[in-house]
């Protein structure tokens, strides 16, 4: 029972991670086969936005992880300097 609840509870998180994983395999200009079009990388920051999101959601869960990811994507705009931007310490 406890295990079952845990699976249900973790469903949104798993789903989001799956979507990001699919994005990385299919569409990402930094991780998928499209990366050959961007030989120097695409994303401004290190790690890339999708990698950051994966780490953030894994470490902080669905809600806080999503918010951190959103913040990161908004920060990845043409008017900021590239940076090493790691997820906060859990």
């Amino acid at each position: 029972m406890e295990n079952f609840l845990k699976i249900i509870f973790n469903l949104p998180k798993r789903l989001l991670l799956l979507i990001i994983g699919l994005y990385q395999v299919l569409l990402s200009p930094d991780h998928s086969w499209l990366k050959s079009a961007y030989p120097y990388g695409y994303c401004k920051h290190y790690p890339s936005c999708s990698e950051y999101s994966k780490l953030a959601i894994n470490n902080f869960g669905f809600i806080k992880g999503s918010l951190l990811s959103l913040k990161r994507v908004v920060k990845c705009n043409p008017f900021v300097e590239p940076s090493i931007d790691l997820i906060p310490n859990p």
Partner: protein
Amino acid sequence: MAFISLLYNDIIYRPLLNLLVFFYNVIPGHDVGVVIILLTLLIRLVLAPSFHKSLKSQKAMNDLQPKLNELKEKYKNDKEGQAKAMMALYKDNKINPLSSCLPLVIQLPVLIGLYQVFRIALNPAVDIVTRLKGLYPFVNAPHSISPFLFGLLDLSKPSIALGIIAGLAQFWQSKLMMPKTPGQDATAKAMSFQTTYVLPLVSVVIAIKLPAGLPLYWVVTTLFAVAQQYYILRKKQETGN
């Protein structure tokens, strides 16, 4: 989830719908095809600066190639160190080859929003009041919307021709985009082959199933990108580098 759909509705769907209807009201001829072309150019212009910047720095990057390869070799097993060293190199040379995720991430909801607008507002089977639900009070509701491009092509229905044109345009663009570096290894070559040939094919397969307004958007947005690339390439030649 309700919050997200509300957000989507107010930030993406309604502005797009209102822009579409507004243009439809004001342009002579009241042609939805022309409206979609105008709308696309507007979206492209808003996103142009970030795209422009990344294209411009590609040439500068080619000159730095040897140094970059050196760094890659040096920090083979330390991704973070490699990223740090590269960023320092970019800074020293005052270039910024990296794009930003935000414009890329914005494009997808815009595409979905447009799809919804075409699906609902252009659908002749639905009554006009339902079709125009979400119009701002200051935008006049037309009595009817004819879904035709130049009076010829029904944009609310799928069009095979337009889907194929969309794929061809995309093929042209990726051909132009491909970095012409002779020393690429086999995997990089295979990958660039896929980008040039497979992705446009995928586009065609998807595009011929969608309301033709969407492939029309795709054609215009891709041609805009091609024009932008040509413009930058020509400018480079004129300045002699």
